[in-house]
């Protein structure tokens, strides 16, 4: 099973490569605020996307992203070399998301539940005839995947999203988590199995892919 997972035919779309040049990062590291502003401009769109996929609350995405860049600003001098900048930035992002999710959990175990908010919104939109098909489909997918991911811990959820959705390689995850590749493989395998079980338990008919994607 592990083998099949490791050599899965599915290759998550890898759309990212190092975006900022090393010199810019070095300048930002040495305290150049203009260079730091440029680094933020280069990465903010991508970080916002990653955060939105990790926390699932659009209204809080910018706040968490600012927290990430704030942490970056005050810890950039601890960066060893510019080559490890991206895993470093991802680590800050993951940590900020953990903190956010923990705060949310503490604040309200279920503030009418994120899911139900989405459902209410969706129901409203459908009732008003406002949502077009595409939007409806995307909402369905978001809601469905969020429900599936609720079956795993926050840590595993983030790890799974980074691997399966963000398309990070095991090597990159190793750098982000400072954990051996094998340990990551086991964690990912277990998390994926749990999600898969939840997926099957949804009787498949509930999958939004069937209705809208095909």
């Amino acid at each position, binding site marked *: 099973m592990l083998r*099949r*997972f490791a050599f*899965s*035919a*599915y290759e*998550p*779309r890898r759309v990212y490569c190092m975006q900022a040049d090393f010199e810019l990062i070095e300048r930002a590291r040495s305290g150049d605020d203009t260079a730091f*502003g440029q680094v*933020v*401009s280069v990465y*903010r*769109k*991508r970080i*916002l*996307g990653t955060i*939105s*996929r990790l926390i699932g609350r659009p209204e809080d*995405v*910018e706040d968490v*992203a*600012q927290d990430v*860049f*704030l942490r970056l*600003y*005050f810890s950039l001098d601890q960066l060893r070399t510019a080559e490890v900048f991206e895993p470093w930035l991802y680590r800050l992002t993951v940590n900020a998301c953990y903190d956010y999710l923990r705060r949310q959990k503490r604040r309200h175990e279920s503030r009418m539940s994120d899911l139900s908010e989405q459902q209410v919104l969706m129901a409203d939109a459908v009732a008003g005839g406002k949502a077009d098909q595409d939007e409806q*489909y*995307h*909402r369905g*997918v*978001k809601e*469905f*995947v969020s429900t*599936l991911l609720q079956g795993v811990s926050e840590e595993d959820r983030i790890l799974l999203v980074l691997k*399966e*959705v*963000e398309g990070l390689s095991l090597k990159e995850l190793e750098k982000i988590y400072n954990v051996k590749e094998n340990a990551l493989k086991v964690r990912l395998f277990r998390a*994926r*199995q749990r*999600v*898969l*079980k939840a*997926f*099957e338990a949804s009787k*498949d008919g509930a*999958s*939004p*892919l069937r209705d809208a*994607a095909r």
Partner: protein
Amino acid sequence: MSGWNEPKLDELFAAYRDALPDRDPSAGFMPELWRRIDQRRKPSLSFGRFARVFVTASLALCFALTAVTWSPSLNSVYTSTYVDVLDDDPNKDVDAIQRESL
């Protein structure tokens, strides 16, 4: 058993990514970020200033106290030992004779 659903799950993850694409920040993103940076920088700056003032004041106090308590020694500098001094005393023999006669 779960194998047949794995490709579907992969497809679902891909669809999830499409449903939540990278997004542009709002116009206030950068100004708000710099505001938060400045806000956080201020206490650390004022703490740094306080620390510098404290260290300077401590050094000044230290110098002042040293100057007040320090006074040049009035004692002459000894160049010989106590035994040498006794040995060189011209009255030592007289004292000894007087003591014996007593």
